[in-house]
């Protein structure tokens, strides 16, 4: 559907996807600060959010540079409305339960890490540099979320149930990760972005093994929810942005 920017090879769209994923997931995680089930988790959610916001800054700054219209990372984060956001629908799901937050993090991390590993070989050095800077953080995110999925899946009956329910609820949102047809095919052809199948294989392998260790079943639905990468979001994103962008919207041009 997308790759609007013919001139830039669709690179701007891709960079928005990377940046918006980090921004929106960072936001959702940060909603737990001070409210997590254990002090160690308070620290962990803040830490993951912090990493993701740092990565957001890098991706969106590069996006602004590629676009060439003088927009800063903050302009892109704070002054776009929902239909210009390119994050996965998965990441804007509300935090109905800490288990859901963890499962979402796990499903995303398992995509994020092979994606970054692929991007480390990007023919665009700026992309490779950002991936290089992010990959260690994300490897840690995946290590942590996998560990928790396994321990809670193979934990009490209640924690098992919650993990399985969250997995079932979120599964239909994962397919969107591997649909690269909204990207300009030349991005992959020219080696800027790894091939979808490469990332999908790594994801599937990791997720399957982890769920097995967690005694959780792979949901069977083949139904895929899509739209995030085309800017067709859920009703939740508008509320999230209204909150996130309030100060920049209410006091335009102010310096903070």
């Amino acid at each position, binding site marked *: 559907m997308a790759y609007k920017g013919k001139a830039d090879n669709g690179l701007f769209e891709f960079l928005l996807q990377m940046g918006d994923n980090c*921004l929106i997931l960072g*936001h959702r995680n*940060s*909603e737990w*600060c*001070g*409210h*997590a*089930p*254990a*002090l*160690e*988790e*308070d*620290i962990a959610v*803040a*830490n993951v*959010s*912090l990493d993701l*916001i*740092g990565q*957001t*800054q890098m991706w*969106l700054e590069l996006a602004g540079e590629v676009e060439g219209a003088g927009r800063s*990372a*903050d302009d892109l*984060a*704070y002054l776009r409305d929902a239909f210009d956001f390119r994050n996965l629908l998965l990441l804007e799901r509300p935090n109905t339960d*800490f*288990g859901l937050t963890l499962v979402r993090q796990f499903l995303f991390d398992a995509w994020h890490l092979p994606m970054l590993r692929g991007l480390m070989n990007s023919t665009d050095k700026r992309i490779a540099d950002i991936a290089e800077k992010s990959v260690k953080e994300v490897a840690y995110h995946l290590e942590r979320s996998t560990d928790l999925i*396994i*321990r*809670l899946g*193979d*934990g*009490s009956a*209640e*924690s*098992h149930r*919650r993990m399985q329910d969250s997995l079932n609820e979120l599964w239909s949102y994962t397919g969107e990760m591997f649909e690269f047809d909204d990207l300009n095919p030349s991005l992959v052809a020219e080696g800027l972005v790894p091939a979808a199948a490469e990332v999908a294989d790594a994801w599937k392998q990791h997720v399957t093994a982890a769920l097995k260790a967690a005694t959780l079943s792979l949901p069977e639905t083949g139904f895929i929810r899509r739209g995030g990468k085309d800017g067709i979001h859920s009703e939740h994103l508008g509320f999230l942005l209204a*909150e*996130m962008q*309030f*100060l*920049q919207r209410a*006091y335009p041009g*102010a*310096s*903070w």
Partner: protein
Amino acid sequence: MTPEERAFQERIDADQKIEPKEWMPEGYRKTLVRQISQHAHSELVGQLPEGNWITRAPTLERKAILLAKVQDEAGHGLYLYCAAETLGISRDEMFEQLHSGKAKYSSIFNYPTLTWADIGAVGWLVDGAAIMNQVPLQRTSYGPYARAMVRICKEESFHQRQGFHIMMKMASGSEAQKRMAQDALNRFWYPSLMMFGPSDKDSVHSAQSMAWKIKINTNDELRQKFVDQTVPQAKYLGLTVPDEAVQWNEEKGGHDFSEPDWDEFFSVLAGNGPCNKERLQARVDAWDGGEWFRDGLMANAAKNKNTSEEAA
């Protein structure tokens, strides 16, 4: 004083550190548990007023700085709970005391953060007052507490600078931002002064705590020091301290200032602050809502233990 108590006091007087497994008077232990756990609870609850603005931070950089700060606070909580645990109380017991209202946390966190400038004011004034309290505690007599304080103070002074920087941006910004900055100072000034506790003449436990070097300075000394440090900073920012009595007193070598409204202090302490109920409820909800999570991890640990025992 028993000979044991005398020997204990002599070690303290000689600036020796008391360590967890050593003998100590029951009163010393109890006072320390109360003080350290209260301090730990303050770090825990202190996440809430600042956490309130994370999702609304005005730039990505400010959001990252605030996240790092709130993360540090949770970390401080962790050090302090661990320090208290060395005195024979568990973290769960301390949480229970917090949730039942038996244990207190710093009343300052019962005030709301209403604008972005409040995040600046919390860093500048609240962390500023906290540091004033904490720096001397690096020399406190109980080893684990003193060592926790060393780590904490280093980070807190960083937070204070960040808070001051937010205030600087606001105070030199647009009219609306200046107004927010002044408004934040107006609301946080007296509550910050209250953070040092009532005047020493009204403070019951002070003398014994000072002899034990659990407390190093008097409340009034610290408050004066805080005012003397803060008044010039406010002037530098172009903001007005909301106390007409503030002026330099050459004779005493410090500023004159008005006492905070101690009735308000005791009223907030008794539960009638703007956010007491919400702060405590947020913690209780987090704890109750997270029970399945903690139980799940414990169930997993028990399984693994069984498995490894079977394997052995």
